[in-house]
């Protein structure tokens, strides 16, 4: 049997691409003929994927299975709709357009189109979200609940383990300052301005020997606004925007930082939280979207953005070694829920029935949970 995956892009380091590759690897190991089709790809992606119009030659076969990853609007959904393959949708969530309206109307437009796409994909055999938050959105969009399930992301944590850290950069970070870290695209829904506000309170009110590191590609207009805000607060020389960085430097960021902070107001899963867990960074995250689900009963989750209060909490964690250690222990424990073998069994439970695998469960709302 052949299994085809359609993704908007296949790029190195991208969460959706990583999940497609994980599925591809497992399907191949299970003896299936697996292919990935993408609308665009980088050099890394070219080693695994073909351009999506090549999928047309497989559309007519009723025995094949096609998995459509929805993360952003992509014209290849037409082929998915027309296909006679059995169909699976994996929904990675789409950022609500209002976050982009003022900074990047074109992205807002694409988000609106993407949101409009979700209800058009309901005629499928199986609908999976990579978190229950995403699964519930699918049900709200008209997917039959009994056909939905959760297939959590398999965070590629070992990817960074095999990378040499950037030692010169690590030495720069290891200068006695307390480093707060955020990793992710610098886009409005991540609310990087709120991280800057928290950092302002911590830096000005509690610990002047501190810095904020923001690692991720920059959306220019938003970035300019953030620079302007940091300057207005007088902390521009302590807030470091690194842009998109290499794995080597990313690893150094995790190794050289002391806390990971997320103020994001929309997340479909949020892989960097688990990367921070993996590198033993205490995580403080705002409870939005799938964040509480990803973190489970580990780390610090807050429901209000009281910056001065959170700065005090950072200070307490800095002083209270016992509290910090308990936090890290629970984070390590939570990571075990995302082990590779669990992903394999979750995938087997969720799509195994369609593939005719013996141990597959019936699909349902509780299927394939990640812990």
């Amino acid at each position, binding site marked *: 049997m052949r299994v085809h995956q359609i993704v908007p892009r296949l790029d190195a380091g991208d969460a959706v691409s990583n999940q497609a590759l994980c599925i591809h690897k497992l399907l191949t190991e299970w003896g299936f003929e697996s292919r990935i089709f993408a609308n*665009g790809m980088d050099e890394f992606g070219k080693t695994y994927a073909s351009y999506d119009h090549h999928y047309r030659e497989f559309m007519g076969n009723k025995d094949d299975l096609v998995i459509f990853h929805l993360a952003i609007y992509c014209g290849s959904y037409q082929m998915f709709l027309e296909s006679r393959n059995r169909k699976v949708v994996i929904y990675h969530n789409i950022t609500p357009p209002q976050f982009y309206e003022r900074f990047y109307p074109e992205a807002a437009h694409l988000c609106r189109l993407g949101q409009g796409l979700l209800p058009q994909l309901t005629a499928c055999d199986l609908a999976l979200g990579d978190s229950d938050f995403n699964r519930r959105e699918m049900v709200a969009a008209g997917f039959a609940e009994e056909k939905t399930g959760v297939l959590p992301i398999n965070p590629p944590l070992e990817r960074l383990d095999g990378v040499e850290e950037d030692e010169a950069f690590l030495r720069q970070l290891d200068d006695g300052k307390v480093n707060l870290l955020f990793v992710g695209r610098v886009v409005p829904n991540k609310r990087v301005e709120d991280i800057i506000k928290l950092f302002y309170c911590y830096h000005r009110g509690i610990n002047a020997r501190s810095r904020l590191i923001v690692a991720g590609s920059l959306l220019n207009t938003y970035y300019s606004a953030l620079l302007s*805000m940091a300057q207005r607060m007088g902390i521009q020389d302590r807030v470091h925007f690194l842009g998109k960085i290499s794995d080597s430097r990313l690893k150094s960021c995790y190794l050289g930082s002391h806390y990971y902070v997320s103020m994001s107001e929309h997340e479909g899963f949020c892989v960097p939280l688990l990367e921070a867990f993996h590198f033993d960074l205490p995580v403080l995250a705002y409870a939005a979207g799938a964040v509480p689900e990803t973190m489970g009963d580990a780390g610090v989750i807050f429901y209000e953005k009281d910056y001065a209060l959170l700065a005090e909490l950072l200070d307490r964690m800095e002083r209270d070694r016992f509290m910090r250690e308990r936090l890290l222990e*629970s984070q390590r424990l939570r990571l075990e829920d995302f082990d590779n073998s669990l992903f394999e069994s979750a995938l087997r439970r969720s799509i195994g029935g369609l593939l005719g695998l013996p141990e597959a469960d019936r699909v349902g709302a509780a299927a394939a949970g990640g812990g």
Partner: protein
Amino acid sequence: MIEVNGKELDEHGLHAKAEARKRAGLYEPHMLQLLERDIVEEVEEHVSSMIQVVYDLQRALEDSGCRLEPAADLSSGEPGEKKRRARSFMRRLQTRMIRAVNEGYVQQQEKFNTFFTRTVDLSYRQLCGAMGGLDLGEAAAKRELWLSMRPQWDEATIEAVSGQGNGRALVVGIPGCGLLEALQDAKKLFLAVDNSDVPVAEAQSRFLPAWFHPQPVRLLSDIEADKLALAVVAFPECLNGEELGDLFAWLDQKMQVGGVALVALNRDSSEIFSGDAGFVRYWPLRFLEELMNRRGFKAGQWQAGEQLFLKGEKEA
């Protein structure tokens, strides 16, 4: 509510501490107001308007039937393929152009500048190769450094320099955004030009008037500059003799009496400027003094912070 390891945290102690810090004045009152400020307020109105206008244009084009995003691969193998590909190319060009503006002027300017610099660099290497006189590997590495390195000035230097001149200021070679921002705050900054795209992009991202050109002095002939009172030449090593001559000829015409020209004396300030292979030229002090004197500037050395300058005051 704050949860630590899934359990609600008793926040009373933290609240008390935070309030005590506020009472002690550790957080300035106007800064506390900034914590309530929406990030959208940081985007200047004209920037928002530009983004919206371009977006509206794009939507209007699409609504009128322009297909702006063709499929990735249009090869069909049928007759007339070449013509279709050409049409597709034009559509893509249109798309990219609109996106270029839509994604933000500054970002694209940065990309364009980088591309342009690389092109100039390549031509230069080809020229050197044709002449057969230079080790291209070493030369390319040095040129890269020359193009990219712009040591930043310290705060004392910035403060002293931005206090000079009583009118508009021109900066040739950007020694960090600190100087430009200080001049902007003093409502003096007229224009900053540089032949390195990195500091220009950084300045543009902060909405400072900065422009890139591989030979920045050439830009000046097209510029009207009245009441120019300060000219700062931060990296004279990166200008050739003709450019320096043209710059001071231009300043002779444009600088008001009493205006100040500052030429940084960078020898030994950085190992980066090695001064050989024709990439970086450390101009003899006497040459610079003579250049200033001939163009009506009374020249003398001037120390500001950690930076030494040759300072020329325009005479009547």
